[in-house]
């Protein structure tokens, strides 16, 4: 399949547009990212902002008005959220709607959906004192605090978050992207409005469009948004940078916490010495694929298949900050064996103990994974959103071709640069080994 190349252009005032042409999709997709610095003082506010904006605007004063309008536009979607990217924070707005030819009335839904987004973004409901409505702010604060507290519900994800915070102690990256229950609770409607004005004034805006319309057409569709934003713009715009530490600066740290769970979680964090901005990150990606990126990787085949120590054992990189994580769920008694097995697999790659088959299988798996991205509008947009910022514009298909040229030496070199930094172990207090019997207080229910 021929893939058309993406195109970028500036829309002025710190706004960039990237067009990713796709003719085969039934929907159109637009991703907008406002990039702001990651800071302990503003994290809670920026995390709160998208959900407060989604509560209502002048034209759609309630969530229900807003949802009804989107339903009428054939279930068009507007998602307001945010995420950490390296040591910056992206406030994101995503639009997805049916592409014109799929709409019975042949309407241009994208134009109408952008109009809804513009209303949310530029005409929020305000109090007389130029602040967001305190009822909306207070409620979203509560929801955000609940959601931060609920991070612990998902054990594997929570363990990785804990590891991340331990590795990056004292670095900006350890800042919780959504703030903490305390910092969220302290946000006032006035402060939040100030943060909102700052974002519109200073945050670079990148727009990613995936669909069949041309650069010219999309620019025209975005022009109401651009002119509204221009009125708020001030200079200089925010510049964000990520501090990359390429080598662990201390002996391996070991952090252990007890949790009332049946499965213990072993998570190991490394300084990867490789980031997207290096330009040859695909070499590191190949190393990761070989180590723990698939069901044919060394970790999966040894720790799970050969030793039967776990159900999940995988490695995955954080590509902007330069970290590598390994995560697996085990019996607490198997901690030493699992850790030694993981160390041995990493060491094997360093020593060049890689069979022809392992190497070619890892290559094919990674290449296939990159090619698959071409089938998903949101994955494509995210691909460019993660890279554009580091000046990288290669497409997934082009990157797949680069992987083709990688050598065993490239992979060995990546493995040698990786240094172990911190181990986080969640010790399950309900994990009593294989003979564990049922019958704790869960799941038995009581008659009412």
């Amino acid at each position, binding site marked *: *399949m021929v893939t058309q190349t993406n195109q970028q252009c500036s829309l002025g005032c710190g706004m960039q547009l990237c067009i990713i042409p796709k003719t*085969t999709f*039934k*929907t159109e997709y637009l991703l907008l990212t406002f990039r702001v610095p990651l800071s302990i003082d503003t994290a809670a506010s920026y995390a709160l902002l998208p959900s407060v904006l989604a509560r209502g605007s002048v034209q759609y004063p*309630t*969530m*229900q008005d807003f*949802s*009804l309008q989107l*339903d009428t536009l*054939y*279930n068009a979607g507007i998602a307001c959220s945010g995420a950490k990217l390296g040591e910056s924070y992206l406030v994101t707005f995503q639009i997805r709607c*049916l592409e014109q030819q*799929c709409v019975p009335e042949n309407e241009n839904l994208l134009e109408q959906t952008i109009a809804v987004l513009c209303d949310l973004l530029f005409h929020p409901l305000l109090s007389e004192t130029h602040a967001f409505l305190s009822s909306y702010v207070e*409620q979203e604060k509560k*929801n955000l605090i*609940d*959601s931060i507290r*609920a991070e*612990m*519900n998902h*054990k594997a994800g929570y363990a990785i978050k804990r590891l991340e915070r331990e590795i990056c102690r004292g670095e900006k990256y350890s800042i919780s992207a959504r703030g903490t229950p305390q910092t969220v609770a302290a946000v006032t409607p006035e402060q939040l409005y100030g943060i909102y004005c700052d974002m519109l004034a200073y945050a670079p805006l990148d727009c990613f469009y995936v669909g069949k319309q041309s650069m010219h057409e999309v620019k025209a569709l975005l022009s109401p948004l651009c002119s509204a934003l221009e009125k708020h713009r001030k200079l200089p715009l925010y510049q964000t940078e990520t501090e990359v530490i390429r080598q662990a600066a201390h002996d391996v740290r070991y952090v252990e916490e007890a949790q*009332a*769970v*049946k*499965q213990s979680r072993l998570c190991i964090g490394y300084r990867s010495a490789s980031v997207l901005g290096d330009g040859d990150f695909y070499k590191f990606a190949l190393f990761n694929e070989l180590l723990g990126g*698939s*069901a*044919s990787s060394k970790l999966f085949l040894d720790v*799970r298949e050969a030793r*039967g*120590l*776990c*159900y999940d054992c995988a490695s995955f990189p954080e590509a902007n900050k330069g970290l590598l994580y390994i995560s697996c*769920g085990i*019996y607490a008694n198997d901690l030493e064996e699992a850790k030694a097995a993981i160390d041995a697999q990493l060491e094997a790659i360093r020593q060049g103990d890689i069979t022809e*088959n392992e190497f*070619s*299988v890892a290559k*094919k*798996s990674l*290449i*296939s994974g990159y*090619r*698959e*991205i071409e*089938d998903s509008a949101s994955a494509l947009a995210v691909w460019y959103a993660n890279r554009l910022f580091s000046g990288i514009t290669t497409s997934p298909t082009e990157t797949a071709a680069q992987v083709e040229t990688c050598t065993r030496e490239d992979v060995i070199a990546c493995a040698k640069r990786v240094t172990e930094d911190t181990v986080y172990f969640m010790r399950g*207090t309900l*994990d009593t080994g*294989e003979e*564990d*019997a049922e019958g704790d*207080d*869960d*799941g*038995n*229910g*009581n*008659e*009412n």
Partner: protein
Amino acid sequence: MQKVTTMETETRIETMHHDGIRESYTRIHHKSGMTVCVLKKQAAVTTAILGVHCGSVDRQFRVNQTESPITIPDGTAHFLEHKLFAAEEGEADAIARFAEYGVNADAYTTPDMTAYLFSATENEIPALKILLDFVLHPYFTKENVARERSIIAQEIRMYDDTPTQRGYYNTLEALYHNHPIRINVGGTEQSIADITPDVLYQFYKAFYHPANMVLTVAGNVTPEEILAVCDSCIPDSFPPFSTERIFEAEPQTIVKPYAEGTAQIASPILYLGIKDCDLHKDPWERERHAAAVDILNDILFCKSSAFYNDLYERGLINGKFGFEYEHAETYAYALLSAETEKPAEVAAEIKRYLSERIRLHDITDIQFERCRRVMYASAVTSFESAEDMASECLNSAIDGGELFRSIDIMMAVTKEDLFAVLDRLYDLNRMTVSVVFPKQPV
């Protein structure tokens, strides 16, 4: 429920077409008895899914009328799904064979289906041969079964630590007296201890028959090449499929109206389960009923409903509020879920709302039309990716249905159909409230 399917002698090919969403696919009734759907699509990825119509609820069965019933340990279908990838000692297992072609394979087990799938950006045809080959040629030994047991035990523990799973099964246990839908798909650490190679072979022989399978392939392939692979890879040697599933009678009542449990979580999680006793043998009747329930639930509870917004604005629920409806020949239930600090209050609000709606029958034309638009859009977007297409098509076909007809049934639902469901489904006597509370710190 005895159903004997004899081998067809000839393969039949149909072209299915849907005018409204402008899509088509080829449906092959293969001579082996297998239903094969081929959806041609220009895409980077080709997805193939081989679904076997058996899952965790199939714990009791008879291979034919003359044999006595067999009961297998809970978790057998799922264990088999894991173990089917195995190969003889010294041979590459199925995952490794796929990987050599750069193809990722996966599998999953649901209450009613076991599915094996791959997604390929090249080598689609060799991958399809591997898929059919490994699913049709089992190989279990004492040793490989024992090793798998510890891996599955970790999987079970992982799900035990997932609070939503706990709430979900607590609800089903409170709704169902006997039906095995109440049992965890993976079984328990105790039940899987009883799974041996013999058990796996017994289950395999009962259900892994081409006539009990559906293959869907979506992507860069033609029906001709897929048919050629099926002809060469599916053996002719299968006896007629005659397995009979056995289910104990399930009362119309529920077990108990309330259940609770604890987990290490931040806020309570509420489930409200409704046992639907309006079961239909005929797949089209079942589809019609399910379509009406889906539309009704959407009107009652979606993000644009007054009810959702009222609870949200009063701070009773946050964004984590959901609803689903699951249905099969022998069971059906609706499930609402919410993360809330006031589970009792939210449950009471839902019950009050449903009773009022049943009395008032108030669904406006505007609500109905809006919902039809949402349904239409979701039908169109299910053809966005090869993987979605393959799985939607499989989900319809495995149950004896057909994707385009399902879409037509969905679009043909009337307001009167909704009222009929309103009156029958939301019976307060068949509702159970299940809450998972945060565990107090140890």
